[in-house]
């Protein structure tokens, strides 16, 4: 494992430990934020903010 990867894994582990040590109400507030974000993503999937256009008819003659 490269030193960079090792540092990344260590910092991820530290973050997990910090999160685990939080008081329960604080963890619940984080879950509530994750729920809100997931709900937003779900609603965005149903109403994609993508402009849908007919594909251009390349080569078609102009009238």
């Amino acid at each position, binding site marked *: 494992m490269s030193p960079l990867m090792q540092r990344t894994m260590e910092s991820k582990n530290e973050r*997990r430990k910090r*999160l*685990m040590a*939080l008081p*329960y*109400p604080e*963890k*619940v507030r*984080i*879950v*509530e934020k*994750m*729920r809100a974000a*997931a709900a937003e993503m779900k609603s965005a999937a149903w109403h994609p903010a993508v402009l849908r256009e007919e594909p251009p008819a390349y080569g078609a003659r102009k009238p």
Partner: protein
Amino acid sequence: MKDTLAEINELRAAGRIGQWAIGGAMGATLYLEPISTFDLDVFVLFEGSPLILTLTPIYEFLKARGHAADGDAVMIHGWPVQFLPAESGLLREAVEQAREVDFEGVPARVMLAEHLMAIALQTGRGKDFARLVTFMEARVADEVKLRELLERHGLGAAWKRFEQNYLNPS
């Protein structure tokens, strides 16, 4: 969540449910890092165990207090709460021995880590095994107590398979 738990305590005070405890992802969140989930699983005991269990008294009580049903859950102060009867021996024990938690002044009960692990093993979906691995890595459970509990509820063989597949794969 605080208001949600207070409402569940009202249900208990009104005698609609017996002892209760939080399980599932929100139960595991007490011991692990926060786990993304959409609902709150509340396992309940029914005192005097009627022959046919029904959740109607719970739904009626909550409806009268302004909480509407939302699929197989009830929306209580922003949380979809799923009430699950603790019917099996393992679930009953998990509710009876749950840990008392003070949630910002509101008393709540959360299943012990060992019970949450045994229930995850019994449920056996992919996400349950993933959570079990997280529990093992976090070393939050009493392993002696866990093994005794697994044997007592007939889950010893399932645990061996889990160990072979996920903890010592080689």
